[in-house]
């Protein structure tokens, strides 16, 4: 086993351990709500800071996991699962952050808080499961001494992980888009169509897309480092091209149909404001979903 790999495994073990301890502290703070929120600022600040630490730790552990796939044939399947779980956990972290923010508001306005606190616990349990799984994974990986995974298997695993992540990210993204449309339905559509979207409205969508971009970058780096195999495997290249064509041809008519439907309904097409941005997001996540699902299906079919 290379020394660098071993160091990176130990970094992940330490990171996962620190994060688990920190999550225990956060759990105690949420359990003690609203009393715990009356404590001096330093106690609640630790919860706020932890969100950023969790995010950075997630990204680091996922990156290390991508590179660890190559080091063990035995663990490559577990590694792929860990990557997917990592992305689900990042989405849970976003929910956790929003519920924490909402808890503060509920606390200030003395609103009922039980539902939000439960949401914080559920999202926290997903994050905890990710760190426990990564702890076990890297402990076992650091202890083992066996042969390297062949490149052909590594390429398959990262391809599966990439497309799985694509499916999960796009489903969550589409759910968020649907949720935003539901919010708009409760308000005056004409006003909202002209209402400019704010930067922070797009942050959740960027956070959802981030995991996919991370694996894509990891996959790109691994392809770049291994010159012998080139950017694509021939079969993967064929599957990717076919999936891209299916994604484009299936979603484009749908979008055109929706625009025509919208035009017939309101008599005008908005080119700025919240509604067109949401349709663009719907298109992007829709394309990603069809593309990733088709690529996975083509891969599994053979």
């Amino acid at each position, binding site marked *: 086993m290379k020394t660098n790999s071993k160091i990176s495994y130990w970094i992940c073990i330490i990171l996962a351990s620190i994060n688990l301890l920190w999550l225990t502290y956060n759990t105690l703070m949420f359990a003690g709500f609203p009393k715990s929120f009356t404590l001096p600022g330093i106690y609640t600040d630790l919860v706020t800071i932890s969100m950023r630490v969790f995010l950075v730790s997630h990204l680091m552990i996922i990156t290390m996991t991508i590179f660890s796939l190559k080091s063990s044939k035995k663990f490559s399947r577990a590694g792929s699962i860990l990557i997917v779980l990592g992305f689900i956990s990042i989405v849970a972290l976003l929910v956790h952050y929003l519920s924490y923010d909402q808890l503060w508001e509920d606390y200030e306005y003395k609103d009922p808080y039980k539902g939000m606190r439960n949401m914080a616990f559920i999202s926290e349990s997903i994050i905890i499961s990710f760190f426990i799984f990564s702890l076990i994974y890297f402990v076992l990986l650091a202890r083992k001494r066996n042969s390297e995974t*062949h*490149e*052909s*298997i590594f*390429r*398959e695993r990262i*391809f599966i992980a990439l497309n799985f992540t694509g499916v999960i990210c796009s489903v969550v993204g589409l759910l968020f888009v649907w949720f935003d449309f539901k919010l708009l339905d409760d308000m005056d559509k004409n006003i909202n169509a002209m209402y400019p979207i704010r930067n922070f409205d797009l942050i959740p969508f960027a956070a959802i897309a981030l995991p996919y971009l991370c694996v894509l970058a990891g996959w790109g780096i691994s392809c770049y480092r291994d010159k*012998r*195999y*080139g950017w694509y*495997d*021939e*079969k*993967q290249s*064929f599957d990717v091209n076919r999936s891209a064509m299916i994604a484009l041809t299936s979603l484009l008519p749908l979008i055109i149909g929706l625009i025509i439907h919208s035009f017939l309904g309101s008599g005008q097409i908005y080119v700025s404001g919240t509604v067109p941005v949401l349709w663009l997001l719907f298109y992007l996540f829709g394309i990603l979903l069809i593309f990733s699902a088709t690529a996975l299906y083509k*891969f599994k*079919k*053979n």
Partner: protein
Amino acid sequence: MRLGNNIRRFRFEKNEMSQEELANAIGITRQSVHAIEKGKFVPSTLLAFKLARFFNTSVEELFYLLDN
């Protein structure tokens, strides 16, 4: 018309080589080897020549046309 192949036979003649070993030797994924063997994927000319060279044979020996 479809493309048939003798890759499986050549693999077994070469010390019962696994798909994974062949994939590593050629520089493709195991999935590609499997798809080519099953006739579900037609390799490029370059890959066909690579395979033929690896088994020390000709492309015509390795691949053949199947009439419907």
